[in-house]
């Protein structure tokens, strides 16, 4: 592991030690965040899968119904029957928060007017197969909207998990070892200097003592 290019001074050592402390604490926090996010993510993904399967199954059914309708009615009549929707749907997008990730929350509200018929066509020119198709489709819409919100949430959460994982790894495998290494290097360097100093002092002391002894003999 590469050692940082720093001056091996006591000042630097204290600074690095502080940074190491912060890094270790950050690492622990991020790891906890990651674990919790993964837990939530797995939960959401399971829900998402269930919902998606449900929507896909119903959608296939509805489209099949429409196909049958299309077969027994001419395209103009079919188009005329459904060109004017009799129901209104209001969708209010807002945001929620999962572990600091801003996720979309879509609120769905159907405006039903009691006096207006839910079928925008008359029964005399349309085939009975259309009723079934319309009924299935109107049942799917809320599910589809829920699915859209959930799928986006999963995507965003997955992105965030990826980012957090990178950060955790960077801290764990790069920043912390690097700091530790540098700290050790500075400590050793300082110790080495210390030892060098001491030997020099001892040597000087020896030399001085030798000098003194020579003077006394003389």
């Amino acid at each position, binding site marked *: 592991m590469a050692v940082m290019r720093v001056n091996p001074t006591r000042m630097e050592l204290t600074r690095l030690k502080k940074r190491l402390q912060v890094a270790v604490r950050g690492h622990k926090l991020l790891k906890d965040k990651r674990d919790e996010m993964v837990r939530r993510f797995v939960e959401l993904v399971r829900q998402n899968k269930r919902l998606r399967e449900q929507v896909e199954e119903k959608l296939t059914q509805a489209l099949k119904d429409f*196909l*049958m309708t*299309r*077969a*027994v009615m*001419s*395209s*103009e*009549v*079919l*188009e*005329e*029957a459904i*060109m*004017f*929707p*009799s129901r209104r749907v209001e969708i209010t997008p807002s945001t929620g928060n999962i572990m600091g990730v801003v996720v979309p929350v879509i609120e769905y509200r159907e405006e039903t*007017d009691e*006096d*207006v*018929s839910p*079928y*925008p*066509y*008359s*029964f*005399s*020119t349309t*085939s*009975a*197969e259309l*009723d*079934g198709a319309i*009924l299935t489709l109107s049942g799917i819409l809320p599910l589809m909207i829920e699915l859209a919100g959930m799928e986006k949430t999963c995507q965003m959460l997955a992105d965030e998990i990826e980012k957090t994982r990178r950060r955790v790894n960077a801290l764990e495998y790069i920043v912390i070892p690097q700091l530790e290494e540098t700290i050790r290097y500075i400590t050793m360097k300082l110790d080495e200097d210390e030892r060098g100093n001491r030997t020099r002092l001892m040597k000087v002391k020896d030399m001085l003592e030798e000098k003194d002894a020579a003077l006394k003999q003389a």
Partner: protein
Amino acid sequence: MPQPSYTYGVARVRVLETKLLGRDRIERMADAPSAEDVLKILAETSYAPLVAEIGSPHDYEEILIREMKRVRDFIGEISPDSDIMSLFFLKYDFHNLKVLLKNMYLSNENDDLALSEMGAIPIEVLKAGLEDEGHKAMPWFMADAVRQIEDMFVIKIDPQKIDTVLDRAMYDYIFSVCRKTRNPFATQYFRKQVDLINLRSLLRAKRLGENFDFLKDLLIPYGDLDISYFADAIEQAYENIISTLEYTPYGKLAAEGIQDFLRNGNLTAFEKMMDDYLMEYVRSVKHNPFGIEAIVGYLLGKENEIKLIRIIMVGKLNNMPAEKIRERLRDVYV
């Protein structure tokens, strides 16, 4: 050029009847492995020139539209009494009116409207009629209905009302013409049609769990079955409906159709039987050489044929299993 007598028209129609697709052709088409093969079979028939002109099987609708237009022009040419004949094309005019009205209330500038080219009244006339204040450009029976819708929509916009009011207006007009011309065949035919449509509406409303309030706007008067019958029937169990219809002309159809509905939960078979019933009625009277029966028969036979081809083509293009196609195939006219 309109002809002075029916005999001429009937004679010409008799010749063309032989060119309608027979049961065996339809069967072969239903059994064909792909849409291309259906077209190949179609190319052996009177549709050959039209089939040759289209590029891919997906353009099959083009064939059907052009064939129907040809039939309309042909019938206009050979029928002496255009008043009665035009009743059978009225549904296309009312369809166009519905589209234009809906488009107006949606207030979009969509040019790609699902208009039918089969109508007797040019679309420009309908458009102009809708735009002017008193709706004078369009026929009076349409103008009345449009005014009625406008009055209703001042209070509340309900798209279904466009359809129901116009349907009512259409049958009002049809039956007024029938009364005036005293044509027993047309009167009978439309009566039966109205009855069958009402019966189907009854079953559809029942299936959706609706009550008579919902149904009553969808019913069309003038049928042999009175509106009060439906008010009663919607509260009844399906078995009772079958038994109350037992001694009407629709006894057999109701019994089989409703039973199938109870078994499968869909009205596919009932709708097929409706069409078959009307076709059967027309077939039973088509031998009158001095009336419109044969000409109407040819027209309905052709409409039916177009429907059959559409069912088969849509089915084949979407890989629908053969039995699903088959259960929707109506009887042929000849």
